[in-house]
């Protein structure tokens, strides 16, 4: 565990804190859903926090991440504040694209966050293109591309991964295998034994790992990033995990699945697990845990207040930014 060993106490506490922040953010918006205020239908990532946080922690600012449906943690780690995200959830002008886009798949060029897609899987080829740009620009940044097991059945998964393999692009494909594509269990949409083996058919390494173990994720991503920066090409990381909430908040957690299954996975909770490890190592204490929880709750309270108090966008906002403005040379003589 070379990379994890180099994490300082501060790092570890910070990673833990990001996971808690992610969890609390999600829990709060799920709780608020249907009670007014929250406009964006929550697609909660509770249970999967170790993947987004473990994969993004330690990335450079100009390393880019492409979010999936369940990467709240990635937005946070990459520096998009809870306030902005919450304002997005409330569809306020202070949110992404001044209210025009959801918080779910928001982009932030400055912070290295690519705009995600509501067309599941389509973001994979876009992420590959970002990695292509890095290669052409001779910049040693990487792209971390998140998507689910459902997305891995889309044609764009195949075309994207093959393309990345052929050009040896600096990209890490993080497949969040939570066992479901909406309400369809893996067994009904996949007949293979694992997704990791698919990498072989694209000419780069793939591995399956415990996605609820933040160190395993961090380790694997860091190693893959080093490979990518060295020009050795992509890696596919299949991270095994589970989401506690259902696909989205229109169904209760236990709809179309066995409550026992949820319980089983709760026993492997990524946050509890890291907490236990850090407590054992003496890095976390009860007091520190409470302090972090309190800070995080306060941060989310603040974000909610910010979102509530922010105005909705004015209707004229609708018409802005359909086209980027053109330089004068392009419009000379134009009448339309």
């Amino acid at each position, binding site marked *: 565990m070379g990379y994890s060993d180099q994490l300082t106490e501060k790092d570890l506490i910070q990673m833990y804190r990001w996971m808690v922040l992610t969890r609390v953010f999600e829990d709060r918006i799920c709780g608020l859903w249907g009670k007014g205020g929250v406009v964006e239908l929550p697609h909660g990532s509770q249970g999967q926090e170790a993947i987004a946080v473990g994969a993004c922690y330690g990335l450079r600012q100009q390393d880019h991440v492409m979010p999936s449906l369940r990467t709240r943690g990635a937005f946070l780690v990459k520096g998009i504040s809870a306030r902005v995200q919450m304002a997005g959830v409330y569809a306020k002008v202070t949110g992404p694209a001044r209210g025009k886009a959801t918080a779910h798949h928001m982009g932030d060029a400055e912070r290295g966050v690519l705009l995600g897609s509501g067309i599941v899987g389509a973001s994979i080829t876009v992420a590959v293109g970002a990695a292509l740009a890095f290669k052409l620009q001779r910049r040693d940044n990487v792209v971390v591309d998140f998507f689910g097991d459902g997305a891995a059945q889309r044609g764009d998964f195949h075309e994207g991964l093959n393309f990345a393999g052929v050009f040896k692009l600096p990209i890490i494909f993080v497949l969040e295998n939570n066992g479901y594509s909406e309400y369809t269990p893996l067994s009904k949409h996949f007949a293979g034994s694992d997704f990791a083996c698919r990498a072989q058919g694209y000419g780069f390494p793939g591995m399956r790992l415990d996605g609820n173990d933040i160190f395993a994720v961090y380790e694997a991503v860091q190693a893959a990033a080093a490979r990518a920066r060295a020009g050795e090409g992509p890696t596919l990381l299949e991270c095994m995990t589970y989401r506690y909430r259902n696909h989205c908040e229109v169904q209760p957690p236990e709809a179309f699945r066995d409550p026992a299954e949820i319980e089983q996975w709760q026993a492997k909770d990524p946050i509890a697990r890291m907490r236990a490890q850090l407590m054992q190592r003496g890095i976390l204490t009860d007091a520190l845990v409470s302090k972090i929880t309190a800070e995080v709750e306060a941060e989310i309270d603040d974000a909610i207040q910010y979102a509530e108090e922010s105005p909705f966008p004015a209707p004229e906002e609708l018409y802005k930014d*359909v086209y980027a403005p053109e330089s004068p040379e392009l419009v000379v003589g134009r009448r339309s």
Partner: protein
Amino acid sequence: MRELTYREAIREALREEIQRDDRVFIMGEDVAVAGGAFNVTQGLLAELGPERIFDTPLSESAIVGAAVGAALMGMRPVAEVMFADFTTIAMDAIVNHAAKMHYMYGGEVSAPLVVRLAYGGGMRFAAHHSQSVESWLANVPGLTIVMPATPADAKGLLKAAIRTPNPVIFLEHKLLYNTKGEVREGEYLVPIGQADIKRPGDGVTIVATGLMVDRALGAARSLAREGISAEVIDLRSIQPLDEETILGSVEKTGHLVIVHEAPVRGGFGGEVAAVVANKAFGYLDAPIQRVGAPWTPIPFSPTLEEAYLPKESDIVTAVRSVVGASAG
């Protein structure tokens, strides 16, 4: 008469057709166990069994492509592609395959499938889950494109769509699923290609599709209070297009307003305007006016989405402008 929601009417059509014809089956993402993203197929798995309705992987191109292949071999697939925005990823199977099979086989076989799609805005689903896509497919010979506006039509048109030996794109507006209306029990078909005069009038013709039919009717009611008599035509299908009904109405009213939810520019309204400006030109007393969304992607925030979607008042304003134009 019995009332059903649009959702229930569609479900009833599916159930009846599957029970009637053992070639008919339903496939799509989460249509079986979960009953569909909009609960349309809820309960059908228990009633009909797993060979007649089943869940597929997240693979829209394969869903429609496989529906084409199954149709060629004598089946009658009803493929659900969930959000109409995903037409983009099933476009090839629809445009280059389903639509052209009968022709390229020289009439030997055809591809009788139905692709069900939920379209339209109003649910704060933003740019990737709210589009009205009919015009993307409106220039493709071989397709039939149906847009029911009421529960009764939804049932009768879907049953006709399943029986038609040709590929049908069936566009269901999300905001209509909960609307109620009278629906006859049992067997009836609504012929595809027959527009419906949902309200007669003689001062102006309003041609509308899908959810906009209801808005047009609302506009017609307020216009009536101003003494303007609007005839509201629900196209029900844009291909075939019932030119006769449109032209007959315009010949009577001399005024035409066309309403759809998609952006005006490049939308299907242009086709209707062109047909009228060609075949009923001599009857037109005023410019043709179109009402639709502006030239922007669909925004997320409610204040913006409201501003985006065509409203009753937009239709009223458009009608006033054409009626005023001829009066003035």
